[in-house]
């Protein structure tokens, strides 16, 4: 039951076991278990502020869990030393919410950046590789633009090209649809699926856009209050009668996720003001 071996019995490239994480004394996650099978696109969904992005950082080793562990290819992430952690990260690519492109470098240099840093490839090969990646996201013609000249959708596509520059095995997407128009959204959805299948990678998509996500992912985890409240394939979840899933999938304002932030009784609160 203790998979220390380098060849995992199951084919989960990332496993999250009984993970708890707290910021200061605020408990963000309480005992989360997730499995990410190789070659699949898995979505992590939940309301804003439910710690979905933090989960990605835990997988990438930028944060350390309070309890439990994240395993990537069977290795416990937070137990790796710096060198091993960096070795592990080279297998990962991450698309940040707003792209996080390097503002002082051109589109071409942004995509070339990981190659220049991690390989000694000659300039001509780097050029070919960068154009290949940019072509895959449809922005080969924009190679000389600066990030400030790109629209939101375009900069996310460039960031995607950069994230897959070194052909990672795990690609993580942090809110890839936030703030995009429907056309750009469709483009990104397409790209995620296509890149995943072309590279044979595993994708982890953090999002709250139910309809976009349900259309292309293989498996979904619902996170709420620091716990996994539901999981399953999109088809299963669409039929789910669980109140939370129902509320989320159908976008209802009130339900298990309350409309009100926790507060004392309304009537009492008003009376206290009068008596003071």
């Amino acid at each position, binding site marked *: 039951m203790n998979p220390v071996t380098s060849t995992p019995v199951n084919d989960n490239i990332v496993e999250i076991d009984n993970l708890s994480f707290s910021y200061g004394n605020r408990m963000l996650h309480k005992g989360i278990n997730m499995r990410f099978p190789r070659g699949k696109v898995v979505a992590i969904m939940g309301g804003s502020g439910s710690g979905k992005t933090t989960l990605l950082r835990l997988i990438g080793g930028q944060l350390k869990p309070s309890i439990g562990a994240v395993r990537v290819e069977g290795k416990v992430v937070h137990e790796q030393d710096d060198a091993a952690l960096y070795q592990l*990260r080279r297998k990962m690519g*991450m698309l940040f919410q*707003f792209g*996080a492109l390097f503002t002082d470098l051109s589109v071409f240099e942004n995509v070339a950046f990981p190659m220049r840093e991690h390989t000694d490839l000659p300039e001509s090969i780097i050029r070919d590789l960068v154009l290949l990646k940019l072509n895959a996201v449809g922005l080969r013609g924009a190679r000389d633009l600066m990030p400030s000249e790109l629209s939101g959708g375009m900069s996310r596509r460039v960031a995607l090209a950069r994230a897959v520059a070194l052909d990672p095995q795990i690609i993580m997407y942090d809110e890839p649809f936030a703030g995009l128009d429907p056309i750009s959204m469709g483009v990104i959805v397409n790209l995620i699926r296509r890149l995943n299948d072309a590279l044979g990678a595993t994708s982890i998509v953090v999002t709250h856009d139910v309809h976009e996500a349900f259309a292309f992912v293989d498996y979904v985890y619902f996170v709420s209050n620091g716990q996994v409240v539901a999981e399953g394939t999109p088809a299963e979840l669409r039929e789910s009668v669980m109140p939370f899933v129902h509320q989320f999938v159908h976008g209802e304002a009130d339900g298990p996720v309350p409309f009100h932030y926790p507060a004392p009784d309304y009537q009492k609160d008003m009376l206290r003001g009068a008596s003071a």
Partner: protein
Amino acid sequence: MLKTLENIGHQVTDAILRLGYAARFFIYSLSVSGESLRRLPLVIREIYFTGVMSLIIILVSALFVGMVLGLQGYNTLQRYGSSEAVGVLVALALVRELGPVVTALLFAGRAGTAITAEIGLMKATEQLSAMEMMAINPIARVVAPRFWAGVISMPILAALFSLVGVFGGYLVAVQLIGVDSGAFWSQMQSNVDFRDDIVNGVIKSVVFGVACTSIALFEGYDAPPTAEGVSRATTRTVVNSSLTVLALDFILTAFMLH
């Protein structure tokens, strides 16, 4: 009453905490410097932005500071009939104090704030996080080259400041007022010592370079990732660098005079 006391206590522990964090950041930056020093183009690029871009403000300020020193020095010295000593006064004031100190203050305002804002924005837009996820250490890639660029640029800027300042003093005293040129230079040369004055001035500017650059880098790296956080960090860079430079100048001068 208890509340204010508590507040003061909080601020003191906060300050100590930050100081400790800053020291750890500084030492860590040094420890990963080897990698960035091996990649000289990174450092050269940053010297361009911190050093070369600061040239104009440094040179113009130096010229005016030197000219003012020449005027004031002449006015006072001629009362004692030793107006030739104006060269000594200008040179010593610049080489020992004003060169390193004013350069450091201008550097903090020109290059320091730029560094803080740049790193703060890189953090706010998750560029540093993105680097980490690409398995690239942002301290080694972003912070350390800027640190070394600052440390290299500062003494160069300070030397230029002193030289241009002396030239400004020469313009006013010799060309404008008519102090004897030979006496101006010979008095200066016999009273400015290479080791005691010039080398010590260079040492000062190196120390100021370390202080200003690491403060600017730390404030940027530590800034809350918001527009307000970055703007506050920029202000703190100027305030903290200036105070640190002046305090360090006192300490260094005290050591050097003994």
